[in-house]
């Protein structure tokens, strides 16, 4: 082993520990290793008890989000060489309860995702039979919502959001962005159905526009933009309601 590096990893075992500890491991330094490679090396060669989630190793399954020196990152997409020779501190994503070691609990997100109704909702009489083919959608219409459809649910945005950490009732960046993804889809009629939650206190108005959700997003989804744009359209809704109450939709 020529050059090595140190990883300081957050350890917590619910069956044994009341408080987490940090454990330091020495791993080989390889130019083309990502942090996940080093963690896999630890699991395989040094300490089989380390628990974490991972799968695709290509930044698309969204499993391996971790705090790397305090910043939320996909551990399969950051290289050791960017930190060498300093020690790297690895922790589970902040803002979530820790199940064990680097594994955090994401039940809360799964509930919120369901509540936001992230699927096409169409007016009943406007459903097109399959035999009549696809709904037409121009490339321009597709471009309107496409960025928001790129979310891999990796939870980095929640970990970057101090609002969520302070008050977990906040629906949060990814779920709202996914709601907006459908709101902006030309095939969808579900905005009103989603609005109740999106425009609620736990929804967009909780956001103070720190903007870090977008900064850490590995897929350029820009959830901060999704939320601010929802604020604008909700405000317009409100003005419309107040100024022309008779114009209210059925």
């Amino acid at each position: 082993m020529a050059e090595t590096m140190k990883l300081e990893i957050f350890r917590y075992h619910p069956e044994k520990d009341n408080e987490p500890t940090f454990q330091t491991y020495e791993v080989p330094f390889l130019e083309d290793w990502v942090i996940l490679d080093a963690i896999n090396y630890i699991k395989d060669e040094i300490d089989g008890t380390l628990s974490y989630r991972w799968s695709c190793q290509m930044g698309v399954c969204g499993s391996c989000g971790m705090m790397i020196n305090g910043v939320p990152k996909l551990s399969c997409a950051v290289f050791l060489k960017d930190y060498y020779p300093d020690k790297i501190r690895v922790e589970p994503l902040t803002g979530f309860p820790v199940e064990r070691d680097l594994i955090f609990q994401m039940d809360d997100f799964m509930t919120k995702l369901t509540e936001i109704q992230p699927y096409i909702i169409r007016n009943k009489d406007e459903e097109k039979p399959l035999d009549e083919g696809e709904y037409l959608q121009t490339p321009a219409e597709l471009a309107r919502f496409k960025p928001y459809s790129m979310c891999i649910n990796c939870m980095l945005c929640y970990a970057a959001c101090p609002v969520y950490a302070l008050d977990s009732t906040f629906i949060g960046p990814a779920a709202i962005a996914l709601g907006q993804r459908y709101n902006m889809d030309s095939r969808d009629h579900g905005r009103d159905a989603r609005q109740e939650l999106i425009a609620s206190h736990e929804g967009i108005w909780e956001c103070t526009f720190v903007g870090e959700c977008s900064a850490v997003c590995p897929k350029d989804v820009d959830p901060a933009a999704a939320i601010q744009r929802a604020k604008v359209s909700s405000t317009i809704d409100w003005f419309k309601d107040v100024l022309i109450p008779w114009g209210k939709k059925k």
Partner: protein
Amino acid sequence: MGKKEMSTYHRPFPNTWWLKRKPYVLFMIRELTSVFVAGYCIFLLVFVYKLTQGADVYGNFIDALKSPSSVALHFIALAFVLYHTITWFNLTPKILVLYKGEERIPQGLVAGMFYAGWVVVSVIVALFVLGM
């Protein structure tokens, strides 16, 4: 196998969270600048009120503003308002997402329009003030 009841660990989130990373510090400064922006708005209202109270009152008020402490306060307020303006202008492309066909209008251009508008308004104000 386990000794204690299994439970998740909730990490504390200290009040000093915003000191931990630079983007959070910058955010908190941006939030803080709102106080100055609001304060200066009140000051401007006072200013207008003094104007309505006749030349003497207004003159005294202007003299008071020339004190070193008042000038210093103005510079501080200017710095904060500038910070506030710039950070918000930089954020406008997030709110104003414009498309031309399939292509998104570059974020820099959207922010640029705000800066351009800012310059134009500033020039008009400057001409108005200096022209007097």
